[in-house]
């Protein structure tokens, strides 16, 4: 395929940025659902206590959310431009 052919949609950079914005909007919902999952546990069906496992689960979800948020944050601030279309901060110093 001819790579120089003009793309019919957004240029790739913008597309990647929009995708990161979508992810940033979705992430809190994912986090909310994962953190609310423990309330579905039925204490009658599983009478033995699992506090240790609960601790592990909550902290695992927490760490995962932090990692994804960091990834998204870098994707957004890397290409962050203000309304006047100025280049990102780092590029000004290059």
């Amino acid at each position, binding site marked *: 395929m001819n790579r120089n052919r003009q793309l019919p949609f957004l240029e790739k950079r913008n597309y990647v940025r929009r995708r990161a914005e979508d992810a940033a909007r979705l992430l809190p919902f994912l*986090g909310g659902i994962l953190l609310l999952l423990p*309330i579905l546990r039925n*204490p009658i069906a599983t009478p033995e206590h699992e*506090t240790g496992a609960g601790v592990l689960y909550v902290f695992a979800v927490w760490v995962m959310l*932090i990692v994804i948020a*960091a990834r*998204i944050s870098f994707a*957004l601030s890397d290409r962050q431009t203000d309304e006047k279309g100025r280049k990102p901060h780092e590029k000004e110093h290059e």
Partner: protein
Amino acid sequence: MIGFNALIIVSVIYVIFLFAIAFFADQQAARGRLGWLQSPIVYTLSLSIYCTAWTFYGAVGYAARSGLEFVTIYLGPTLIMIGWWGIVRKLVRIGRTQRITSIADLISSRFGKSNLLGVLVTLLAVIGSTPYIALQLQSVTLSYAVFANESGTGTEAIDLNSTAFWIAVGLILFTVLFGTRNLDANERHHGVVTAIAFEAVVKLVALLAVGVFVVWGVANGPSDILARIDASPIAEWDLRPGRWAGLIFLSAAAFLSLPRMFQVMVVENADERAVATASWAFPLYLMLMSLFVVPIAVVGLELMPKGANPDLFVLTIPLSMGQDKLALLSFLGGFSSATSMVIVAAIALSTMVSNHIVMPIWLAVTSKGATVSGDVRQVVLIARRCSIAAVLGLGYAYFHYSGGGSALAAIGLISFTGVSQVLPALLGAIFWRRATRHGAALGLIVGFVVWCYTLFLPSIGGATLISPEMLEHGPFGIGWLRPQALFGVVGLDPVIHAVVWSMLLNSLVFCTVSLMTFPNPLERLQGMQFVNVFEHSANARGWSGNAAGAEDLLVMSQRILGPNQAQRLFQTIAQKQGKAGLLPDPSVDFLEQLERELAGSVGAATAHAMVAQITGGASVSVEDLMAVADETAQIMEYSSKLEEKTDELERTARQLGEVNTKLTELSVQKDAFLGQISHELRTPMTSIRAFSEILRDVQDMTPDEQRHHASIIHDEALRLTRLLDDLLDLNVLENGQVALNIEQTNLYDVIERSLAAALSAVESETLSVVRSIDQEQIMIATDGDRLAQVFINLINNARKYCDHAEPKLEVQVCLRENCVEIDFRDNGTGISQADQNLIFEKFSRLTDHHSAGGAGLGLAICREIMTNLKGSIDYLPGQNGAAFRVKLPLK
């Protein structure tokens, strides 16, 4: 064992160190070295004031009582921060574009600058925060008591009350010193933020150190800890779904609506990019703070005797194991958590109290308003300082009279539920354009009342306010009004019951009333700007521009911002409009910018009221507003490039218009000049001719008569020469052919010489001159004679035109960076704005020329001289009289 006195010394040294950090950061900021002060790391760390002593001591106690549930308090903020793109980013942008000073300011400003809403939110915040501040004082005094007990001094030996009192005094001192240094809240408190960022590090390190000690020092690593968790009483804990979900929601809501969080998150934010970093770094901080809470609680329950206060495990575990240094570090961590929260809360609350309660009252009491009354800046600063003292005083009083006691977590949740009542109005403000101020106010009131009735009074007031019978059977025996079982819903946890009902009724009233009422035009425009803040930063609002006198506005701004800053602001705006001088056109943009600048000092509602006083009342017609709104909507359709071009065209058009009027005026003047000059030349010529004819033709004339006629001829010839000299002088100066005699001159000598020349002995008695001799001792490189010529002219003008019964001339010298400004100010009526543009033109004489006696060339010559001396001379408006500013370069 650490003695109690040693502990006092360590905390005093720590506090001195904090003062030093804050002072150093303020110094750096004052020198403009803002680099690291604005870094995302400092921003993230400053957010950590969310973790108060409630986290530091209370989380472990909470875990010991209710297992993993403590973590919900940190999961809510985590969800908000990882979802920063939706809410926090918008709040920060609105805060920056609208120059918001507090959460009360945001709500009041969004709903048509309604001060009622500002007062409501302020009251709610103060009532909600007071127990929380008391809690911090209590936790610090408790931690002192732990050390006192250990070292054998005994609790009774230390007066807990006086400890709390001195802590409160120290906090007031710190907050007043670093929190009210600069008036403009948007200039940010770098010292305070840096100090709390440092405290954030201390508390994290302290808690991690205790955690590491517990896991690897007491237990045998992580797997051992997990085993101990499952063996401990904590394992008995069962997750209660209602509380789990409800508390996650509550902590998320409180994170957004706590005044102190709003202060660090929005008001102190200097760079939007910092929010992106905080979106993951702050959850990481929270996660690390919570990481060792359960292990510490488990080990504490094992080691400590039954009945030991689990809220203090963080301190008592290291102490009981003989780890004094660790205990000390842990004490400092708790101390940091408490103090940083109190300081920021006091700043946030005092800003709200002074802007929304004190200033409106002050404005109403001094009925003449901002234009006449004294320096507003001082009033605001004093109001803010008193409010800080009052807020902390309230906290101390609450601590003193409640006697402490209840578990830390309980007070925290009650306070959270109270401040969260702002949430529906806050979210409505930034996402719902048609939300109205009636809806917001009623929603807030309903939420507040429900919170008081179901949670605050039953738990805080004890049996005095709500009796056990009332709790059991409801007021007057009405069962469905029972405070902890509203509408007959029984069996809910009291906190969750209060959260559900207060938030539900609050939101319901807010939405319903908003749907049923109409917003006023100002609300609609503010709503559009808040909700669509990312689409357009250009704002429109309904000031009918022509009504405002730019000069009056300048006078008022000088009082609030200080003369220098105000004059600089006006000059920049005037330049942007393409106008020379100090007074810009009172366009909508200008008024809006001015109002926003003032809002940074006194809050949006007050600033609006002040500008309204001058522009002739806020009564802007709906048509006007709609016209402005339509205009904005149209402009938004253009691309930004086109917009820029339009601006440029507009500027050019305004310049052209100005030049055109000036040209027309000049042409009229030129005609007048020709008439004038022939008149001026002909009058002396006529008398010279007449008298010389008499001398020639009349034969028998006494020598006396001859001398008389000859002297008239001589006088008239002198007058002619003077006029021609002036014309010649002007011509030479205008063509730049003048030879200047530049040498080092003392300004004092020049002024002294000019005054001597201009005022003869008799006249100097009528015109009194006020000078500042000390400031005049400046050496400048200039042409002293030419400068004196300018001064003489200005002094003569004051002598001739100042129409005050006791004319007074003030000569003020002010040294700037590379120039010196000499102001000549008299106390007459001054020069009307229309004439201010003309006075420097040739042959412009404003009054009847007989009284003046000159040809109207004086100021024109002055201006040419100053141009040749590389300086300038301008008319200075807004000074209660005619005032001229002569500006000279120093080198």
